[in-house]
């Protein structure tokens, strides 16, 4: 009989077992229902005729992270205890297949099902967007899909681990409490608690893999007898745990809340005070390409400093207006700079590339989930910004001459008029 031992390459058997897992999953009526529900949900969150594709992609991913996170918890918990529920465990575990391969293939199979649901949700988002307007910048959905997929990997791995090791779906479902906790405690918890922020993704990916490999190591350990676990499992668990620890250390040390209040650069930015007629507060923040960008780089230009947030859909409309400004008035020395007030540092890149923005979009990485607008971010604080979007127009010496708040900043002629006036006063 063609057989192999646990020491042989696990790739072929895991691939074959995963195919069976996928087959079992896709034939389930619950899975089919979940696909339809995900598509309909995507339709409901993904489209608004007045906003761009990037916002649709961002909103779809945010909803996916939040709600699909719960679904992933339940889905994985149920997948983990499937053998016990169906009473197939006795047949399965009397066979020589190593437990770690079985557990891994089951995880991959169930995770692929979740990815299919996520795909259905994004398809819903794209479909609703296509009804709403032109579909330029469709590629904006791709990084958001991967962001949501990474978040689902974390909830999946955590739930799977608990359910599998305690042989109880309820144990896995307790991860749902974590999700509730971070949703409820957004204003109090440090940003590193949130797997959905782009800057935390690498750390949580490593943590997910560490959890998964730890599960594979401990799952039915006695079933191996005197055989040790597969070498890749023995190596994987500590390796990914170390990587996760290193990544979390980096995330915390690079200044995300609450340590941001101890960061000297951030403190200096916050201590500035911008008033109309006074000098615009300076900053040095990463733009959409990760390059540190500050106002000093645009000496002698009329600056259009726009504070906006993807969580405020109306302020997204401003981004397009600034694209026109950059194209038409750029040669005359007008320089738009958008400052993204969002806990997710990756939002700047998403909107800059998704909306094809031709000016710097910097991320205020000190943004915190504060309930009060003025406490929201160091830059918002420095600019005394209490409503989004707000546009500050400076003269060529960086003194704020005009402040436009809310609808004035992106609709009506206020922005154009203010810039025309500034150019008239300070021609090149």
């Amino acid at each position: 009989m063609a057989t192999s031992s646990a020491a042989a390459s696990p790739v072929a058997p895991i691939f074959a077992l995963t195919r069976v897992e996928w087959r079992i999953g896709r034939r389930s009526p619950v899975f089919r229902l979940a696909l339809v529900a995900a598509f309909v949900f995507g339709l409901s969150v993904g489209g608004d005729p007045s906003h761009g594709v990037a916002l649709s992609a961002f909103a779809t991913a945010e909803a996916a992270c939040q709600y699909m996170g719960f679904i992933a918890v339940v889905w994985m918990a149920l997948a983990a205890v499937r053998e016990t529920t169906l009473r197939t465990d006795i047949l399965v575990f009397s066979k020589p297949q190593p437990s770690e391969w079985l557990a891994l293939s089951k995880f991959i199979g169930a995770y692929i099902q979740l990815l299919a649901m996520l795909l259905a949700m994004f398809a819903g988002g794209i479909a609703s967007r296509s009804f709403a307007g032109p579909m330029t910048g469709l590629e904006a959905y791709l990084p958001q899909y991967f962001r949501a997929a990474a978040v689902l990997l974390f909830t999946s791995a955590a739930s799977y681990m608990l359910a599998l090791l305690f042989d109880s779906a309820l144990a896995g479902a307790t991860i749902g409490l974590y999700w509730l906790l971070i949703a409820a405690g957004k204003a109090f918890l440090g940003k590193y608690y949130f797997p959905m922020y782009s800057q935390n993704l690498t750390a949580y990916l490593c943590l997910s893999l560490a959890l998964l490999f730890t599960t594979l190591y401990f799952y039915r350990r006695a079933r191996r007898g005197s055989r040790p676990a597969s070498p890749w499992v023995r190596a994987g668990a500590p390796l990914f745990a170390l990587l996760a620890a290193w990544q979390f250390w980096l995330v915390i040390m690079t200044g995300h809340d609450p340590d941001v209040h101890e960061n000297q650069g951030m403190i200096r930015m916050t201590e500035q005070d911008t008033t109309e007629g006074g000098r615009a507060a300076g900053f040095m923040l990463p733009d959409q390409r990760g390059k540190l960008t500050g106002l000093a780089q645009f000496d002698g230009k009329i600056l259009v400093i726009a504070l906006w947030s993807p969580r405020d859909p109306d302020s997204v409309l401003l981004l397009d207006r600034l694209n026109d400004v950059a194209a038409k008035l750029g040669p005359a020395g007008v320089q738009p700079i958008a400052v993204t007030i969002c806990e997710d540092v990756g939002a700047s890149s998403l909107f800059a590339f998704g909306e094809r923005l031709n000016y710097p979009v910097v991320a205020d990485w000190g943004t915190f989930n504060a309930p009060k607008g003025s406490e929201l971010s160091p830059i918002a604080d420095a600019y005394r910004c209490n409503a989004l979007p707000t546009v500050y127009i400076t003269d060529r010496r960086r003194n704020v001459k005009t402040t436009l708040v809310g609808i004035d900043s992106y609709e009506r002629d206020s922005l154009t008029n203010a810039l025309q006036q500034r150019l008239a006063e300070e021609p090149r």
Partner: protein
Amino acid sequence: MKPRTACAWRSQLKVEIQKLRKEYDNGVVGLQCMDLTITDGVFALLGPNGAGKSTLMSILATLIDPTEGTALIDGHDVRHDKDAIRQLLGYLPQDFGLYPVLSAYETLDYMALLCNMHDPAVRQKRIEELLARMNLTDVRERAVGGFSGGMRQRVGLAQALLNSPRLLIVDEPTAGLDPEERIRVRSLLAELGGERVILLSTHLIEDVEAVADRVAILHKGELRFVGDVAGMLEEVRGKVWQIDATPEELPGLRGKYLETGMLREGGRLHIRVVAAERDGERFRAVEPTLEDAYIWLMREGVDGDQ
């Protein structure tokens, strides 16, 4: 009696059990210090529910560890060499589930993968053989969720045979089946017995009569008898009697003798009892059956290790 098959052509396998004891976490003792050796042919474990048959089988199938003692299968220890044992083992549990959405073929394909049969061509050939042997070829594409108890049992038997096991463990394979399916499963076991060691657990005497070469009777985790079917009958030869009685006499006789059966004929009753000695003229000696022997061996007050 079972049809005797050709000699066991390759079953040199031996199961050696020494001082095997299993106590569960909740304090229930499943097995009490058992010594047993199992070699060629069909070996039946006979006993009521809770006798320890399934516990013994689960230990031999490497699903649970014994508390004390050793069990060696072909020289491999069930505690340590689990992978080696699983390679030469086929197991059909008493109570098992299948994936309801998979077809019979897909179920066996999955189980073959679990047996480390990675070559698709080898898998396909083996599955086709077993489907034909189990008379499941016509329903191979049907989801097993819609199978009858007998068909499920045949799928279970097929999955246990995928890796051509040298030791086949079947736990209550005929329980809950209709008479036709029961006969079919027994025939299959009798047929398979010539090719490997089969450890069969049952609480049905008919199963033992039909297929077993040797029998062990278990009661409350202890062995009451080990030997062949003829030896089992010898245990009660000369001790089985038939008594003609009226219904009014029945309670008194039942209190006095070990009853193994009863027949009603008109207004009279023919009671079958087992007793060490003839107790009066009414006692008429009859030929013993395995049922008589079983009830005699299982009677209260008898210690194990006979």
